[in-house]
């Protein structure tokens, strides 16, 4: 666990831990792709995989929080990369060329929360949400969506 926080020391804003002892590292949104590239170079192709991408909406802070959960292969540790995006303009670089497995997570987060992943050609509105909600232009997981 310490190896990863050493590696990302230049990018990290804060680090803390989530239950049950998973390491959380907060990085600014412009450095997400560089941080993931550094991680991939360290662990190689078969050492790490992207497990989950979670987006959470905070309407009172006017921010959307995005988490990337990574699992390393032989030692089974879970790391969390956390970034904050402004609610009016939630754009972040897509990591599809580094980890093609992030396709499902990125498509779902876009469809449900409205986060735009630049560079991902597969995102579209009708991926998960049925058409009567997409025609209203509403993102269902936002707190003020009325769904």
């Amino acid at each position, binding site marked *: 666990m310490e190896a990863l926080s050493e590696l990302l020391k230049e990018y990290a804003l804060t680090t803390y831990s989530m239950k049950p002892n998973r390491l959380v590292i907060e990085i600014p949104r412009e450095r997400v792709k560089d941080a993931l590239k550094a991680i991939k170079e360290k662990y190689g192709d078969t050492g790490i995989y992207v497990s989950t991408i979670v987006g959470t909406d905070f309407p009172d802070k006017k921010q959307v929080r995005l988490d990337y959960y990574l699992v390393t292969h032989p030692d089974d540790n879970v790391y969390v990369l956390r970034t904050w995006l402004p609610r009016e303009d939630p754009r972040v670089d897509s990591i599809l060329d580094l980890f093609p*497995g992030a396709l499902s997570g990125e498509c779902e987060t876009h469809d449900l929360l409205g986060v735009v992943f630049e560079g991902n050609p597969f995102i579209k509105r009708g991926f998960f949400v049925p058409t009567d909600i997409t025609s209203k232009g509403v993102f269902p997981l936002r707190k003020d969506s009325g769904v």
Partner: protein
Amino acid sequence: MAVDKVVEIPVSLEVPIGPQHPALHEPVMLKVYAEGEEVVKVEVNTGYNHRGVEKLTEKNSFYRNIFIVSRVCGICNIVHSDVYVRAVEQVMNIEPPRRAKYLRVLAMELERIHSHMIINAIMAEVLGYDTLFMYIMRDREKVMKAKEILTGNRVLGDYLMVGGVRRDLSEVDRERIKDVLVKLEPEVRKYVRVFEEDETIGKRLRGVGVVKPRDVTLHGLVGPTARGSGINIDARREGYDAYNEVPFNIIVRGDMDSWSRMMVRWHETIESINMCKYVLENLPSDGPAVPDETKLSRKFPVGEAFARVEAPRGELTYYVMSDGRQNPFRVKIRTPSFNNIINSGFSYIGYTIADVPVILTSYDPCISCMERAIVTDLRRGERKYIRFKDLSMGLK
């Protein structure tokens, strides 16, 4: 030779489970573009109805969510409620007694046995081997009886509660479950031999759907799909519930095709039977396994937790965040079929159309939908509908 016929197939998989299969499953459409008999490109379309669950969990209290979340999947409902309850226990700082942990492991391993038996039966049915399908389902009924003795219901065992389990296991019932397992094991070994030695199954399954280890981690495939290609990932190694005390082996095979994925599942079934026997013989009695539900805490601290569990299909993760109120702030569910099916469009390329259902079944999709395939003959401009079973016998 010029291409004059493009077969455009939206292929949907039929999972013939019958009336005991509850609702809330994702329908999936694979758009397969084929040139002659060889698959050239595959697009995966989804339009699902179980993500409404994430918004629904924000409107109900933590305790009502246990039952709502258990109904996301019918085949693996005990593992869904187990990981949600563990995440809530992390937030509330509660540790269940050891007897409850052992009973949870027993329920989850029974779930794994019946789920692996049904996917192997479906694989036999997709290949056309209906006799084997019926025989495996007959032996699976014994496992459903064991689940009924333990949890009170054959399919949806609402068995877990924050702080333990909801029903205890008496001595008489313990002997009955052990009888069921002892009768089941020689039958399972017979089916393992059939899958290993039968020539037809070998020709249909070996060499089909090869996934290299590098592709497995890059695309995030989990579960027996990954373990059939040599990658040793298993969420049970974390040692949650009683898995740090019950001995078990993780089955990994090196041939990267569909046959090795199905054999991983059969050998895991035998491992699960041994684990259940160990749990039944060594049940501790250190505390009451059933918490008193009338005295559960009504105050929830602020916090978040991330829990993983090894469902029969792979790694299932839950993220629960609470901000002090009665309802959770955010619950995020990522099922293993989400990664396995959507990210696997690359592995169909180069195989024939008759291999597409075999490859899809070997990933163990947790979906149930209609069977429909559309063949467009461009030259004549007509469309006809083919049944899924005819498709797996080859295109005329």
